[in-house]
């Protein structure tokens, strides 16, 4: 059976000679798959980290990335048994429709995580934190 990360809560099955073993997927893997889906969407990309709602001034000089449509966004995933919750912060190209772009990303993320890992996506929370002209 396929379960997510968190080895402390594995599902153990009674001894069965035909039982091959468990498959455990790390949250990092799911997050990377989700991040790539945004990267492949031309109208969306990485967003600059925000401090109290604003981009920190001079952040670029401190090695902190800025919003970039050609970069992968920061993404995290939580796995609960065989269900996945994804969170991501993205930037979107101005003046694309936020509804269209986020829906496209959400569909791609759900389809790809399901197809590649067998896990079910329960939620994709997308924060659009910047618009890039």
């Amino acid at each position, binding site marked *: 059976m396929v379960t997510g990360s968190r*080895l402390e809560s594995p599902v153990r099955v009674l001894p069965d000679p035909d039982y091959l*073993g468990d*498959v455990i997927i*790390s949250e990092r893997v799911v997050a990377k798959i989700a991040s790539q889906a945004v990267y*492949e969407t031309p109208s969306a990309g990485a967003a600059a980290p925000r401090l109290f709602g604003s981009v920190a001034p001079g952040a670029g000089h401190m090695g902190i990335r800025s919003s970039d449509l050609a970069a992968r966004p920061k993404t995290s995933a939580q796995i609960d048994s065989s269900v996945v919750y994804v969170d991501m912060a993205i930037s979107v190209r101005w003046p694309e429709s936020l509804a269209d772009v986020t829906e496209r990303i959400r569909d791609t993320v759900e389809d790809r995580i399901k197809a590649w*890992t067998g896990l079910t996506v329960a939620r994709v929370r997308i924060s659009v934190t910047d618009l890039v002209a």
Partner: protein
Amino acid sequence: MSVQATTDATVDGVDVDKIAAAAQDCPAVDALVEGPPAMAATYLPRRRVTGIRIEDDVVTIQVRLRWGSTVGQLAQQVWAAVRPLAGGHRVDIVVADITGGTER
């Protein structure tokens, strides 16, 4: 169950080197990896085998998935390659990481 290690890399009747080589040869496996979440590694005299742990009746194999392969393909390949070498142990697969995606 006691675990006895010898220099020929046999732990609990299972040859760790052979398991590692078989898993590494699977097309969907980019590499065997240690660290979280499973912290899988086998410590032998003067060396360490990354990504394999043999404990009780379970062989744990921790891998980095190759981009473009599914977890299902990975599991089928690893089980087919490793089960004959596992001496009746159950084989658990931990997908710890995936290689970077393709460029657009």
